[in-house]
């Protein structure tokens, strides 16, 4: 595999990292707020089914909602307390919409439910996967895809995504530095579940401390530490796969089809916690950074409103915006009531500067700088041209859905075009079109079936009538026929009027 050492993917950008501002202090430990607000749906797939009701007392780690379908995972109480309400509340989502949330009032006893160490080595695979599902494991790298599905494939090589390529974010870096053993155990367990023969940790060369720590503590010869260049977005699944294996796959393909599976650092630590300590996912590491007095990483309970952390770090004077995620892919949160979820890796505070830079949005001049940086090797300017003019079919010709929304193109565009916003718009239009197309197909089928049914009923009735008629005497028959005629005439007249 060494021949790929020098390999880098096409494009990408090298923005200023700004990582060290949040790595000065160790991860701050859990603190329990006055109210935890847990969105019911925190992962890809169907929302889990509530199994508690208002007023219930729950223990730390107790399941609050159970998986409702295969693509669904459980939710657990991050601490002990009372279920206060089940109500709508803003969730961290670009739509700024409200969704159903569980309001948990902690009793500050932080009392664990009885923890059970799971002897994964002696369990059948299905049982292990069911444990993952019940205990709420989802990918912590961003997509929150249920882990039990990803873990069900049999592969050769586990790749650990420790790239953390976005500027400002340091949660994985800090977790690697401080929880190295836990992480390495996680890798071990994941390799066992996946049947992987080896693991490769892909880590950007700007995380020297973490690399040193890993090299020091790693005793497993099956785990290789692979240092990759610091180029955004090296942490994207397909790009990372290419960096560590030289394999290029398309968006719709899965690494598991090629003998690889990719897990994020946070996911692996959660796996270790589950199997070693029997703890479900109730907290994660979140970076609070940007325009703060003291940026820091926190081990945050899921459901903690972010205002607690912001207050702890101290917001500087002046107008600011709260961004969830990094500066490249993050989206704005409308207020600080929003709570930490399994997918929240970073909260970035951006000052509302009155910019002196020339930021007016101009038409695309087709300078093709975006082409040069697009890691998916797309033609962003064409995608933009067609999305802007709503020619969605054309965007598909240019493989819109292979765009990973990394934002490299917008980053370099001299015309300051919010390209990614256009792609997101086009993608969601196409998706909703597909859905309404499906609905229309169903409606058409049902309508056709109804017409067919009416027709059949009519012929059946006619047959029945004919049979009956055969049995009645002639005179009556005549009368009947006349009546019918009149009725038909009426009907015809009606029809004409229509």
């Amino acid at each position, binding site marked *: 595999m060494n021949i790929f050492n020098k390999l880098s*993917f*096409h494009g990408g*950008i090298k*923005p200023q990292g700004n990582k060290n501002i949040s790595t000065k202090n160790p991860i701050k430990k859990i603190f329990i707020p006055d109210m935890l607000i847990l969105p019911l749906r925190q992962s890809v797939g169907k929302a889990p089914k509530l199994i508690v009701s208002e007023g219930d007392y729950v223990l730390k780690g107790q399941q609050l909602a159970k998986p409702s379908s295969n693509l669904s995972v459980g939710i657990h109480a991050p601490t002990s307390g009372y279920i206060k309400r089940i109500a709508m509340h803003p969730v961290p989502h670009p739509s700024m919409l409200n969704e159903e949330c569980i309001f948990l009032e902690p009793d500050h006893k932080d009392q664990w439910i009885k923890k059970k160490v799971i002897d994964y080595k002696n369990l059948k695979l299905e049982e292990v996967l069911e444990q993952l599902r019940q205990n709420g494991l989802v990918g912590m790298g961003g997509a929150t895809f249920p882990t039990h599905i990803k873990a069900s494939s049999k592969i050769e090589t586990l790749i650990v995504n420790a790239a953390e390529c976005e*500027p400002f974010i340091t949660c994985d870096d800090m977790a690697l530095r401080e929880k190295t053993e836990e992480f390495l155990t996680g890798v071990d367990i994941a390799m066992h579940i996946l049947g992987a023969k080896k693991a490769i940790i892909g880590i950007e060369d700007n995380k020297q401390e973490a690399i040193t720590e890993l090299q020091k503590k790693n005793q497993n010869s099956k785990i290789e530490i692979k240092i990759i260049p610091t180029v955004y977005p090296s942490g994207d699944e*397909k790009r990372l796969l290419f960096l560590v294996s030289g394999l*290029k*796959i*398309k*968006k719709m*393909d899965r690494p598991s089809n090629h003998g690889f599976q990719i897990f994020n650092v946070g996911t692996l630590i959660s796996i270790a916690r589950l199997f070693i300590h029997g703890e479900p996912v109730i907290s994660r590491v979140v970076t609070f950074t940007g325009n703060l007095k003291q940026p820091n990483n926190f081990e945050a309970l899921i459901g903690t409103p972010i205002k607690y952390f912001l207050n702890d770090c101290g917001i500087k004077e002046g107008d600011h*915006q709260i*961004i969830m*995620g990094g*500066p*490249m*892919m*993050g*989206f*704005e949160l409308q207020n600080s009531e929003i709570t930490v979820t399994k997918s929240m890796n970073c909260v970035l505070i*951006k000052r509302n500067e009155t910019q002196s*830079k*020339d*930021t*007016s949005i*101009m*038409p*695309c*001049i*087709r*300078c*093709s700088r975006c*082409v040069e940086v697009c*890691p*998916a*090797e*797309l*033609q962003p*300017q*064409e995608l933009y041209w067609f999305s802007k003019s709503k020619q969605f079919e054309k965007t598909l010709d*240019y*493989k819109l859905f*292979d765009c990973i929304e990394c*934002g490299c193109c*917008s*980053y*370099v565009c*001299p*015309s*300051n075009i*919010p390209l*990614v*916003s256009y792609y997101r718009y086009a993608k969601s239009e196409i998706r909703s079109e597909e859905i309404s197309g499906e609905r229309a197909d169903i409606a058409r089928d049902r309508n056709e079936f109804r017409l067919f049914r009416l027709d059949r009923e009519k012929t059946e009735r006619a047959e029945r009538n004919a049979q009956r008629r055969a049995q009645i005497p002639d005179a009556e028959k005549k009368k009947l026929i006349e009546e019918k005629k009149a009725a038909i005439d009426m009907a015809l007249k009606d029809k004409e009027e229509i």
Partner: protein
Amino acid sequence: MISSPIIKESDSVSFVMSHVFFALIPSLLIYIYFFGYGILGNLIFGVTLGVLFEYLCLKLRNISAKPFLLDGSTIVTCWLLIISIPSGSPWWIILIGVFSAIVIAKHIYGGLGSNIFNPAMIGYAILLISFPAMMTNWEVSNSLGLNNFLNLKNLFNLFHVQLISNIDAVSSATPLDNIKTYLFLNADNLNPNNFPNYEIFNPRSIINISYFAGGLYLLHKKIISWHLPITLIITVILFSSFMSLIDANKFMGPIHHLLNGAVILGAFFILTDPVTSPTTKRGKIIFAILIGIITLTIRNFGGYPDGIAFAVIFMNIWVPLIEKFTQPKVFGY
């Protein structure tokens, strides 16, 4: 709501365009040194008109004008148009040219970024077609005058030179045209004495070299990529060498082709118009090769002294198709 990404590289359209005219300034100075200040008046007049037309169009279309007036693309367009037409052209020629470029070729299509034809070259082609006599002759007169060929006054070239200040310049012939008419008649009707004996380093070729330098600056600044200019120059060299190998008496060699006429200017400043050239790398190469071949075909066989302008607008038509067929592979496909 702000949209991601929230950090940006600081670069803007006006920044890109201003590099283009930085790159053009040295050649302008050399031009003035050799041929006098005439060009400057045209330039000021043309650019002012262009900005005016731009402003009017934006106002008519109800678009806030400021960012577009500041983007500098109008200035680049007008500049390139003005240096392509004889510097002694009357004001109304400039007016018609700038109108064609800015209004017809650019704003009717929707302004910056939406045009499919190179505005400056459309302006030039419309002028050439409409007023061939004026555009191809320095002295525009209808009198079927005396033997003014000896005075070498009716020079024509894509860069018609201002002859006011420097008499030396007069003796520098415009070989493209003279050789062409010479070849056109198989020499049997032309006084052989008139066949241009010209030096390689005449003012015009020096100006062309300064365009080359400006082009290198743009390459260095990554405003343009190498594909278009280098491919064009190589194509011209190869194709003209090939032709002159066939018949050196009929066809000029590569040096003449490069140092005369608009190949260098075209290679670095005209083909590279980002809006109207292909965006794919292979597309750029195909585009430039075809422009080179068409240009030389027009020069050697066609009806115009220089072919860059027509070759460019002809190839502009092909850009969507070229792009369609040169799409690079998407990651993973």
